[in-house]
């Protein structure tokens, strides 16, 4: 099938699915009513069976039947262990109002990090008592090689990342801690597979990423990594990437398309874990469509599947600002209430600033996710989110500049400077006042 034809079909069918639901989402209410979430899940199964996934490399469509997608939805592992020895954690499917704590795996996900700071920056996350695992940043260089995609440098960088990240785990006193979405320093098959060479990542301590591309596209890359993961027994850190404002117009369409893509992804990877992010185009910038979309996606899945979901927090604002801490907390809260099994990421500056993330952003998402566990009143959760959004908008007006890791940490001791500790305390105090029920 011609890709243009597929693109048109996926949009026309998506609009039909949305029109059939005829739901107007109240964007002031971040966590939606349960019946809305259930209807979206059903629509996603129908939609997924209708459009399938497009393989860019073969120009063919991978078609799944409705029965196959339903089977996938109901045969995921509701829990699995990852990590080694005393640091092994059990990732368990959670649900709205669940009192059990989500697993905490923050990290400077995808942030470019220089070799010089790679170990201490990750250690700033890994050493925190709340943290059970980490998701890494991207090495900018290794042994003189620049990180250039689709070159042999990817192999060198991915292998070096694996060595350094496991060194971080040892330094943190958690040598068997799980390492999520690895490798981050390579995106092509040779680099990804090289990271699992002897001395590198192992099936027992890591999760390998596979993402359906926007527009429900995959290629041989996805199938290669899925085959590698299954042969090696590596759990998949899966995602269907949907850009809101492009193929999908609004939260309902974004949720339908994402879930359809995720079910198809799990059908060919046999994966048991999904991470999620709502990526808006330039036209949609406010938090209003993003947060309700995330909460809707989480609720639709946690109500209709026994599935381990990862909430990926993160901030547009730069590191070591109050705005970044508040934004990270905001992005961690609603999905954790809605049933996230793992809270992760926690980077700043949209993950694009070299060395521009710190463990303190990871700390705030862990504490927030732990606080969210047990919040079982939808109205109360929505009230808290509303308060935090208002607080963030006010903070945003202050135009804080932000800092990089070496500017706000004592790098030798891997400790935040007093000024940053003070800022953290203030942000947490404000968030507590906004209603987040921190445990301590």
């Amino acid at each position, binding site marked *: 099938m011609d890709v243009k034809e597929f*693109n048109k079909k996926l949009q026309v069918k998506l609009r039909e699915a949305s029109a059939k639901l005829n739901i107007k989402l109240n964007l002031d209410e971040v966590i939606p009513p349960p019946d809305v979430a259930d209807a979206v899940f059903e629509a996603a199964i129908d939609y997924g069976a209708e459009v399938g996934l497009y393989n*860019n490399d073969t120009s063919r469509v991978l078609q799944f039947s409705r029965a196959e997608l339903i089977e996938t939805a109901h045969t995921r592992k509701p829990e699995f262990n990852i990590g080694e020895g005393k640091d092994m954690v059990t990732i368990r499917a959670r649900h709205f109002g669940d009192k059990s704590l989500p697993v905490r795996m923050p990290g400077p996900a995808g942030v470019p990090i220089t070799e010089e700071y790679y170990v201490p920056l990750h250690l700033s996350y890994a050493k925190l008592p709340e943290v059970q695992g980490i998701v890494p940043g991207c090495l900018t260089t290794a042994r003189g090689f620049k990180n250039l*995609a*689709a070159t042999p440098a990817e192999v060198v960088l991915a292998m070096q990342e694996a060595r350094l990240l496991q060194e971080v785990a040892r330094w943190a006193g958690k040598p068997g801690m799980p390492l999520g979405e690895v490798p981050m320093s390579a995106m092509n098959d040779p680099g990804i597979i090289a990271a699992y060479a002897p001395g590198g990542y192992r099936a027992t301590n890591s999760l390998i990423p596979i993402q359906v591309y926007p527009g429900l596209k995959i290629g041989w890359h996805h199938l290669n990594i899925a085959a590698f993961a299954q042969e090696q027994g590596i759990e998949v850190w899966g995602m269907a990437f949907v850009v809101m404002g492009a193929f999908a117009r609004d939260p309902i369409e974004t949720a339908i398309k994402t879930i359809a893509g995720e079910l198809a992804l799990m059908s060919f990877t046999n994966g048991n874990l999904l991470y999620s992010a709502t990526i808006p185009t330039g*036209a*949609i910038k406010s938090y209003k469509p993003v947060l309700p979309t995330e909460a809707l996606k989480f609720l639709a899945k946690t109500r209709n599947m026994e599935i381990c979901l990862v909430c990926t927090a993160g901030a547009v604002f730069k590191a070591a600002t109050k705005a970044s801490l508040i934004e990270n907390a905001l992005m961690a809260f609603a999905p954790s209430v809605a049933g996230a099994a793992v809270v992760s990421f926690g980077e700043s500056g949209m993950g*694009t600033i070299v060395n521009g993330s710190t463990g303190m952003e990871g700390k705030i998402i862990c504490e927030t996710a732990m606080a969210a566990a047990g919040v079982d009143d939808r109205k109360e959760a929505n009230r808290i989110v509303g308060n935090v959004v208002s607080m963030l908008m006010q903070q945003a007006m202050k135009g804080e500049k932000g800092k990089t890791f070496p500017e706000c940490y004592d790098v030798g001791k891997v400790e935040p400077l007093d000024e940053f500790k003070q800022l953290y305390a203030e942000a947490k105090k404000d968030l507590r006042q906004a209603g987040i029920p921190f445990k301590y």
Partner: protein
Amino acid sequence: MSTKEIAEAIEQLEGAKAEELVMKALNEGANPWEILQEGIVKGIKAVGDKFGKGEYFLLELQEGAELAEKLLPLVKPRLTTDQSKPKGTVVMATVKGDLHDIGKNLVIMQLSLNGYKVHDMGMDNPAMNIINKAKEVEADVIGLSALLLSTIPAQGEVIQNLKELGLRDKYIVVVGGGATTQKWATQIGADGWGVDAVQAVAVIDQLVEKKGAGK
């Protein structure tokens, strides 16, 4: 019958009505250049503007581009050779190692809607393939898209290769994508950078006009 009605029908993506209005205007002896500029071009530009405002989405852009493809052949035979030329020829590519194409596709649709002839090279293109394509189609502009920090250096590689081949001044090179900034574009010696698809067209328009490329 006015060109305004044609523009409005296109903006509303009413294909059959737009086609009928264009034919009627031509049969009534209206100036084809005016039909093109004041009717079709204005209408398709309005489609692009609506996308920029978040009122239209990819499907509408695609429909707008298809409508333009249908209407232009009706008018073109009645234009002078000079009038029927595109604003410029653009080679658009996602660079080597990068498998993300949604941003590039948006720019392509916006450029097509704005009167450029665009050659879409898809994803994961080695630098020399892009340069060879630009030579082959006698491009005015090379557009390079990359999402990731590990793939944006490949944008610089294209520019470096152009310099080494003595071709740098022959092409306008614009870059874009998630991890790029104006600072990055300046650093690698690109001629322009756009934050999104709408701005990309404005940047290219300006650069093409300044260089006197295209027409």
